[in-house]
Structure formats: structure tokens, C-alpha cells
């Protein structure tokens, strides 16, 4: 469990993070979301004890980061931004060194190092120098360094930056897998990533928390209307009648006319009403053939932009 209470970080007069508070429970996968320079890394650095906050309090598993820094740090595995590695060590040596720094019991060290090397898929390259590895592997080494010593909490700063699509999927799956046994906090500005992996999102903008919620709730919050796209064959233009027949419809808008004489409409209704059933039956009565019908999803992306812009006004 992580508790952040009224944390502020100032650099002289510039404020990096202002009065943020949140709680992260055990087993949650939390995404820290925000545009560049919003204060994501600063927040993570404060959690990991790399920097100290100007005011406020952070408790990790009950240990205050300023009063009991060692105990607090023991709970955390941290994958820093830009994957810093000791380039003159091999993968195995690097992970072993991390294990030693985290005071992993000497007898169990070898075994635990092997375990994370296998877990992160580094077995084939364990004797290679870290400087000779590709970006994707470096990311994994960094992840292995964070994982060793079995910390309860994993803090990952932009874990998928600079990876190719295949590697991104691999790392995401790894994070999902780890999320089953760890509390995970990751920062990202890729929204789809956060909505895929996380079950809680903290949106930060200009050093302040804009929203804390589940990805689904955030999406729902910003979508005022329930929108449905229908593609129909409607040669006699009966669609105008429909509006009178279904009273819940607020608006029908022609989106486009296709070459095969079908038309796509956008049908808007109030937030809590799902019209799909009604549309289907009414359209059938009027002999309008439905080719396609889908609910227009508001994405986390919309939510994000709306929240950030809302904050800027």
C-alpha cells in the first residue's frame, strides 16, 4: 500500500508537483498519465526516494520514505527512465549486483537471480555485456534489476518507450503477468497502453492530479451522449420517420454516403439509454436494412484530452 499525502516538490520558485495525494492499494496496476513535463517522473522519483519532496508525506507499506528510507526502499523495485545500466557488467553480473544492493540473502542470491533472468527471458544473453544488447533486451535487464529481491511494489518509468511493436506487446504481457503478484505503478503517455494494462489511472497535468479513476469510468465520465453509428440501405429516405417513432433519439446526423448507396448515420441519445434494440426493430418495420451498427466508444484518449484541456482553461 502506498500513501501519498499533500506532496509538493519545488525547484526554487518553479513547482514540479503541487499538493498531490493518492492511495494505491495492494495488487493494483496503476497508470500515471500525463503530457511531457507534467510531473510523472518527479512523482515516481519521490516515491522511490531518489529525490526528496519539499513538503508532504509518502508512506510505503507503512514506512515513511524520509524517516525509514531503507525499509521503504526495500519494498520497491524501480525501473528508471532511460534504462540506466552498468555497461561494463554482463547481464548476470548486473542482476547479481542489484540483488546484492538489495541485500538478498547470500544463500538464495544465485537462485533468485536465475529466477528473474528466466522470468524476463534473458537466459540466452545472460553472459553478454549489457552495452552490447539491443534496446528491448536492455529494457528487460532493467526490469530484471527491478524485480530481483522480490519487492512488493514495482515502479516502472515509461517501460515501453523506444521499443518496436513486438517488444511492446511482450513487455506489456510481462507487466500484466507481474501485476498478478505485485503492485505496479507505471508511467506512460501512450493511452492505449494504460487502458489495456491498468485498472486505475492517475492523470497528472502541470504538477496537479486531474483525475483518479478506472479507465472505464474516465471514459464514461467524459462521454455525455450515447452515440451509435448505423450503416443502412435506405433508398426511400425513411430515416426521417424514425426520429418521430423513437422519442429517445436526440439527433440523427448523416455521416457519409457510400458508393454502394448505403448511408452512415450517427444517432445520438441520452447517456444512460442503449437504443440498439429499438433501432433494430423499428428499422426492420420500416424496411430499412441495417448493414452495420456499432456503439461509438469514447476512448481514454478523449478523456485524457478533455481533462487536460479542462485544466488548462
Amino acid at each position, binding site marked *: 500500500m502506498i500513501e501519498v499525502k499533500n506532496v509538493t516538490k519545488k525547484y526554487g520558485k518553479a513547482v514540479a508537483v503541487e499538493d498531490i495525494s493518492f492511495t494505491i492499494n495492494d495488487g493494483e496496476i496503476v497508470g500515471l498519465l500525463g503530457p511531457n513535463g507534467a510531473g510523472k517522473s518527479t512523482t515516481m522519483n519521490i516515491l522511490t526516494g*531518489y*529525490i526528496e519532496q519539499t513538503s508532504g508525506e509518502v508512506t510505503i507499506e507503512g514506512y515513511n520514505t524520509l524517516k525509514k528510507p531503507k*525499509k521503504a526502499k526495500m519494498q520497491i523495485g524501480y525501473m*528508471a527512465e532511460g534504462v*540506466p545500466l552498468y555497461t561494463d557488467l554482463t547481464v548476470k553480473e548486473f542482476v547479481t549486483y542489484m540483488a546484492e544492493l538489495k*541485500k538478498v540473502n547470500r544463500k538464495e542470491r544465485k537462485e533468485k537471480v536465475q529466477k528473474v533472468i528466466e522470468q524476463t527471458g534473458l537466459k540466452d544473453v545472460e553472459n553478454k555485456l549489457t552495452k552490447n544488447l539491443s534496446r528491448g533486451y536492455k529494457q528487460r535487464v532493467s526490469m530484471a534489476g527491478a524485480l530481483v529481491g522480490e519487492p512488493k511494489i514495482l515502479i516502472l518509468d515509461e517501460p515501453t518507450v523506444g521499443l518496436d511493436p513486438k517488444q511492446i506487446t511482450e513487455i506489456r504481457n510481462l507487466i500484466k503477468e507481474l501485476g498478478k503478484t505485485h503492485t505496479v505503478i507505471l508511467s506512460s503517455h501512450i493511452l492505449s497502453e494504460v487502458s489495456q494494462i491498468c485498472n486505475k489511472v492517475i492523470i497528472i497535468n502541470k504538477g496537479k492530479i486531474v483525475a483518479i479513476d478506472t479507465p472505464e469510468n474516465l471514459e464514461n465520465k467524459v462521454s455525455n451522449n450515447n452515440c451509435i453509428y448505423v450503416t443502412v440501405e435506405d433508398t426511400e429516405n425513411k430515416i426521417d420517420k424514425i426520429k418521430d417513432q423513437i422519442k429517445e433519439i436526440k439527433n440523427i446526423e448523416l455521416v457519409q454516403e457510400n458508393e454502394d448507396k448505403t448511408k452512415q448515420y450517427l444517432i445520438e441519445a441520452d447517456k444512460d439509454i442503449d437504443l440498439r434494440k429499438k433501432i433494430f426493430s423499428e428499422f426492420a418495420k420500416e424496411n430499412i436494412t441495417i448493414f452495420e451498427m456499432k456503439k461509438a466508444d469514447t476512448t481514454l484518449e478523449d478523456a485524457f484530452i478533455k481533462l487536460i484541456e479542462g485544466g488548462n482553461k
Partner: protein
Amino acid sequence: MWAIIKKEFKSYFFSPVGYVFIGLFLIMFSIFFYTDVFYYQSTNFEYIFYSGATILTFIIPILTMRTLAEERKSGTEQLLLTSPVSITKIVLGKFISATLIVIITELCTFLYFGILSYFGTPHITTALVTLLGFLLLAMSYISFGLLASSITENQIIAGVITIAFFIFSWFLPNFSDVFADFSLINLFSNFPYGQIDIADTVIYITFTIMCLLLTIIVMQRRKSVR
């Protein structure tokens, strides 16, 4: 702390740094040995260390300049500072591993002692006292080198600051006798006579502790201003 000592010590030999340091010292030491023994027909082991101290002034930065600066530049500092190891132990670990390299270098000089004892009878106690003084000098140099390395992320600048300070402290007594005891290298001068001067020893040790403390403070302070 043991982990840091071990890793730092190893990386002195993964990179050429350790070899360069020991090699350069021994080459220079051999030249001075040759001139002393063959040119001046002396079998005095200790006196060569006056020249040894001069060499040390110029090569200590090789050991110290990258220690903290490089960690900061490459970002690996984050790994250290977020691990459950205190800053004091990080600094001490780095200090001890650099000191170990100097000790290895000193052990190598026993080779010359061996050669001399074949031809004459060098005095073992005086030699040991000299080595002790030499180690104290090296420790104070290393501690300052660490301090210089902690204030910048450019290792070249750290190296230049270190050498500049050593040369400055060396020639300080030339400006006024008031500064006689501020010259680290001059404090060494009694040791080759077999005298352990308490005042000199205390100055070396306090200087070392002071520099290490300052390094720790610099690192700690950066946590709140970074």
C-alpha cells in the same frame, strides 16, 4: 557496502583504469628507482617514495574522477540511490575500493625492496612506516578526488579540479610559511625517516574524513534540490 566495494574494485579491472594506474605508477617508480640506485649508488628504499608522492599527485585523479561523476552522467546513480544502501555507505564503498588499488600498488613496490635487500640491507620498519605515510597521503588525495567527482557530472572536469587542487596545495607553503601544514605532500616528508608524526597523521586523517563528509553532504543535498 560490501557489494559496492566488490563491484567498484572489479570495475577498476574491467576497464583499463586499474591497470593504467598501477602500470603508470610502477613505470615512473622504476625510473626513479633506477636513477636513485644506479646514479646515486643509494640502497635507500624509502627515499624513492618522495618521488612516488609526486607521481601520486598526478595519477590519483585516474582512480577517482569517474567514480561519482560517471554514475550521475549515465543515470546509474538512480539505481544506487533508490537501493536500500545509504549515501554514506556508497561513498565509503567507493573510497575503500580506490584505497585498495593503492594498497595493491604499494604491495607491488615490495619487489623493489626485494631487489635492494639482495644488494644491501634496507630497513624494514622504516620502509613500512614510509608505506603507511604514503597510504595516508593517498587516502587524503582519494577523498578529495571523490569530492571533486561528486560536484560535477563531467569526469574530465573532476580530474582537472583534483590535480589543480593538489598542485595548489603543494605550492601553498611557497607563498607563506603560515600554510606549511596545508601542503598534503609536505606532510609526507617525515615518514621516510621512519618517524610517524602524530600531527601529520592527524591532519591526513581529519582531511580525509572532512572530504568524505563533504562528499556525503553534496550527495545528500542534491536529493532535495535535484
